[in-house]
Structures are given as C-alpha cells and as structure tokens.
C-alpha cells in the first residue's frame, strides 16, 4: 500500500503559503522498512501501532459543525433511527479543541472559509476531515460567486461522501471508511520518539472497487409502486 507523508516541520508557515500547509509526498509503507531492520521490534511496533489505531478509530469524537442542508442528514445519523453510537462516534463535541474529526456538512462559502480554517486549526492532532455532500466535495450544483468549489481547496480531506444530501447511511459508511483508513495509518507514537511524519494510507476508490458489481444490475424497479 502507498502512503502520503506529511511532516510537522513542513507545516511552519510563511505568509504567502497556501492552505493546506505542509508538503505531501508519496512513500512506501514505513512499517515495511522497519521489518527489514529487525523482525522482533518490527512486529512489536506493528502490534503497538495497530492497537493504538484500533483505539483511535473506535472512539472518534465528531465536532458539532454544520453548514447547511447536509448537516440535517448528518444529525439524522446521530439520532436513534440511525444511531451513530454503534460506531463509537456519538460523543459530539461543541468545541473543536476536544474533537477528533470534523465533518464539512454543507456548502463551503467564501465568507465562511476563513472561519472553517480557523476551526480546523484549533483542532488537535490527530485530526481528520470528512467532506460530506457534493457542495463540500466540489461545490456541487453551486457553481456561483459566493461558494468555494470544494473544501479541499484549503483543507486536507480524508473521506468524500457523495450525495446531495447523502443519506444518513451514506454518511455512516463514510465514517466507517475513515475508520478503515485510520487503522492503516502510521503516526508517531510520541512527539519525542522516532519519525515525526504522519503517514496516511491511500485507500482504494469505492467507485472502482464496486464498479463491476454495479454495472451488472440490469433490472431496476419501476417507481410506479412503493
């Protein structure tokens, strides 16, 4: 699996640097390289790393942040019929400082973008971003002067959930995909020990993964009956 590496040092910004800060480079799995050094410590590190990741991915605290319509579907996912607690992500935080991930649920407005950036900066590492809905993914149907054409113009996005709005189930699937990718991540175990880079796994695209199965559907239900 290939990884994207971001180093903390790179994120020290100069005035005319653009968001997202920090250089990204594609690298091989750093864990694999360790294994070459010593089979024993390599295994140990692998176990340790995957335990920490397991803990992280199963207690993701979302930041209570909503922009527009998609937020309503996101809240729907939080309430009982969909029950996000099944995935350990029900501890909604009102402060970015306590949250683990932020869902950009809705349209990203030019007027709001600096605010979003500020809130993102206030979140502590490790942190992740889910972009929910067409507006946040690409501007969606709002190719208009006041809308940023996709939140990834300035934030690093981990998972994109398509839809306008995505169903709550789709959001939950996005959350699970984020969990899968967290399981594969390599982060420093401490801020003084070892390599200080963040290695994010490049996960396969869902569209490509399911394409074969999807195009085999030949019979679609008519909308004439319920």
């Amino acid at each position: 699996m290939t990884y994207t590496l971001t180093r903390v040092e790179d994120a020290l910004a100069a005035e005319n640097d653009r968001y997202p800060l920090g250089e990204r480079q594609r690298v091989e799995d750093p864990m694999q390289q360790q294994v070459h050094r010593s089979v024993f410590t390599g295994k140990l590190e692998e176990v340790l790393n995957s335990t920490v990741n397991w803990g992280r991915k199963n207690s993701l605290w979302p930041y209570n942040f909503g922009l527009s319509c998609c937020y309503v579907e996101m809240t729907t996912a939080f309430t009982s019929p969909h029950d996000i607690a099944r995935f350990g992500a029900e501890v909604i935080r009102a402060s970015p400082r306590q949250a683990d991930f932020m869902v950009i649920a809705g349209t990203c407005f030019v007027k709001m973008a600096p605010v979003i950036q500020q809130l993102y900066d206030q979140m502590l590492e490790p942190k992740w971003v889910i972009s929910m809905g067409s507006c946040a993914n690409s501007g969606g149907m709002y190719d208009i002067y006041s809308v940023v054409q996709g939140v990834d113009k300035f934030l690093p996005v981990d998972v994109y959930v398509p839809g306008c709005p995505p169903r709550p189930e789709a959001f939950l699937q996005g959350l699970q995909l984020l969990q899968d990718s967290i399981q594969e991540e390599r982060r420093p175990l401490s801020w003084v020990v070892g390599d200080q880079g963040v290695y994010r796994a490049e996960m396969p695209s869902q569209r490509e993964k399911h394409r074969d199965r999807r195009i085999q559907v030949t019979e679609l239900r008519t909308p004439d009956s319920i």
Partner: protein
Amino acid sequence: MLFDLSAIDERLRSHRHGLPEADFTVFYHLLSVSGNRDIMLKVALSERDLSLPTVISVYRNANWYEREAWDMFGIRFEGHPNLFRILMPSTWQGHPLRKDHHARATEFDPYTLTVEGQHREQEALQFKPEDWGMQRQSADADFMFLNLGPNHPSAHGAFRIVLQLDGEEIVDCVPDIGYHHRGAEKMAERQSWHSFIPYTDRIDYVGGVMNNLPYVLAVEKLAGIEVTGRIQTVRVMMCELFRITSHLLFLGTYLQDLGAMSPVFYTFTDRQKGYDVIEAITGFRMHPAWFRIGGLMQDLPKGWDTLMQRFVDWMPARLREYERVMMENSLVRDRTKHIAAFDTANALAWGVTGPNLRATGCDFDLRKQRPYSGYENFDFEIPLAQNGDAFDRGQLRIDEMRQSLRILQQCINNMPAGDYKADHPLTTPPPRERMLEHIETLITHFLQVSWGPVLPGNESLQMIEATKGINSYYLTSDGSTMSYRTRIRTPSFPHLQQIPELMRGGFVPDLIAHLGSIDFVMADVDR
C-alpha cells in the same frame, strides 16, 4: 407592513411594457394585513445617481433590506445608519446581482487561501463596536463583547450574533448574516425555468417541495397554465407532509436548545417515518424537486395511501406525548413563558409572518386569506396563541401539525382522479404521448427539454404560507428561456432582524430560547 424591498438591474431588459426609463429599479412591496391587499412601489434610478433616501424611519425592517440592496446592487440609501455589506464578506469587490458581475465561481480564478489572506479575513471579521455606535463601557461597567457564532451549536447553522453584555444581561446585540449566501437569485438568471426548481428546494432546506410551490405557481401564472385538481391536491398533500417534518425538526432542536437532550431523538424518529412516505412517493428525502411547471414529476405510486395513512395514524399520540412531557414540563415553561414576547404591532413592524406572527394572536394565514393550489377546498383551522412568547411559538407549531394531519387525512379520503400534468404547450417536461406523434412534435419536445420553455415577457409574483412564514417568488421574465430577475422573499430574514429589539435587557439563556423558538434555517435567510 413592509413585506419586501429589493432592486432589479434593468440595463439589459427589453420587455419593459411602458415602464419609465431606468437603469435600476428599486421596489417596495407593502402588504396590509387588515385589508389583505398589497401595493408595490417602484422607483426608477439612473446609473449616474444610484441613491435614494432610506425609509427606516417609517419601516424599521427596511434596514437589512436596504443593506442587501446596497450589497447586491450598489444602490446607496442616504441616511442609513450602517450601510455595510450584509451578505458578502466586507472584503468583497463588486455587487453580485448587477448584470455585469460574474456569476460562476469557475469564471474566476480558483479559490485559494493563504496564511496572509487568512489573517486579513480574520481581521475583517473582527467586531468593532464603534461601527455600530456601541459604547465599550458605561459609567459603572465595562461591557463584554461576546461573539456567538458563526459556528455555535444553538445558532442553527452559520449565523453569528455579537452580544454586548453587562454581566449576564444583554445590553445590545448585532446579528451578522451572510455566512450562508449561495447566490440563489443570481443562479436563477442562469438556469432555465425548469432547471431552477432543484435550487428552490434548498432555500428553506427542511421544507422540501414546499419551496417548489411558490416558484412553480409563479411560473404557471406567467405561462398561463391551469393545473388539474389532482395536481393541486397532491401538491397540498406533499407540502403539508413537509410542514410536519419541518415542524418536528423545529420541535426537537427547540427543546434541545433548552437543554432537553432526548426530544430530538423522538422527533427524528417521527421524521424518519415521514421520510419513508416522502421517499416512497418522490424517490428522495430532503430535496425531491418533485413539482414541475404544469404538474408533477410523476403520478402517485400504487399503495401510497396505506403508507400515508400509517403515518397519519402514528402522529397524534406522539404529539400528545410531546405536549405532556415537554410543553407541560415546568422547566420548559419557566425557560420560555414570557420570554422574547412581542405583540402583533411589533411583529408587523418587523415583517414577521407565519407561526411567529400567529403566536401573537394575529389571524393571518395565506392558506385561508389568499388560498392557492386549492386550499379553499380543505377543512382545517388556523391555530392562534395570545402572548407571542417563546412558549407560544413552540406550542403553536404542535397545533399546526395537528391541522396538517387533518389536511393529509382529507387528501387520503378524497384524492381526485386526473392527470398529473397539465395539458398546455408550456408544461415542462411535456407529456410524452404528445412527443410521439410525428417529427414536428418530436422536435418541439426536444427543444423544450434541452433549452426549456420560453415564457412571455412579464412579471409575476406568488406568495405561499411556507413552514416558517410567507415565502414569495417575484419573477421577471424577459421573454426567454431564463428568468431575468428572480426575487426570493424568505420569512426568516426579517425574523432574525427583529432579534436585537427583543433581546435588549434579556439574558443570554433567553436569547438561546428565542433562537430556538424562531425556527429559522440560514439558507432561508441568506439564500
């Protein structure tokens, strides 16, 4: 009351039917509640002298409308105390609704945010009390300025309000909007009449097809289309269903803002049941865009009535339970009774409509006063309350849901037979059978679907009683496939403008209770 105020850029318009020479027109839409009549005043302006005296001394709510006209068209209102931008960021260049301003983001360099730009924008977002004529201290106290929003759990979206506090007491406050401006009015000038429908869904985004209705009705007026009884009834039915889901969302979040965690879980369960019906009928949950010019997207599916009946049977007991558990709860009562109360005169001075107006005892509901889409055929009542406080606004919506359920029941019992598309050449998309006659009809069909219908050059206006108050579309057609100007008047805009007057002298928790009770979504404010 001053119902609406905005402007039109007339410079490119050709069908002007004897209107005087003008580069810009500012219009004032006045509505009399007691007389149930409207007047629209239009003032012609030339490009060289784009200014008018402000009307704030007569109509308080003109304040934001004039700021909006300044922001969008660059029209100055002399004597306005704070003629700042309202929807666009203060660093913005240009006036978006002018015909010479670009519409698409992609006509422009892609958006980037640099570290320096971030500092600059944050600087511009700083609140400066002096700009608003506020003191930083009084004789015996230093005021604290508390910034609530643009992202705050009880601000219901991207809404910001800056409070001037003396201890817990709100001395004054300044709402700041525009964090949710999606340029829907500009968008309408770029979409065909037909393809604008999905954008209307997203104005009041919890109102679903309710938003399609005023637009579609206004277009039908322009085109001269008469729809069948079945279309009317189905439209009413879907609107009322959305009214219920919207009010349920209101109820859950309103109580949550007061600190009650669980109601939102209950009301969202009900919403889910409502959405099951909506999805079975329209194929989509929140934004079905299901109405069409001259009809509906398709007919009702087989078995819709059983589903709907199940929902109608489910709800009454739940509503009773909400009343018993929440509205009769002494904590809820203490937090909301006599909080942010206003009377009818005050409501009208601020342009308040809908349930918030009726909570003051004013019986003005367009479904009765100016029936549209066949509301005159239904048997239902308009619930009223007396005190106009946060409690009444909550209770009234529960009562409204009961009435909506009554309407739904009547729809189930008496659904008329008929076509789901009107028989008119401008119905879009046209009925399929008409296409399959010969090559000529095929070409017409193709043009109408690809370019969209051409509507005669004229103006039309349609208001409806939407979930949150009166929503209206004022369309100006220049005889083409697109609208020349679409003015969308939304109820939440004036509702937010009224906040400072109500909150002066109140406490912070009262503000939260009030925000919960207004029932607004930011898309319905900023569009």
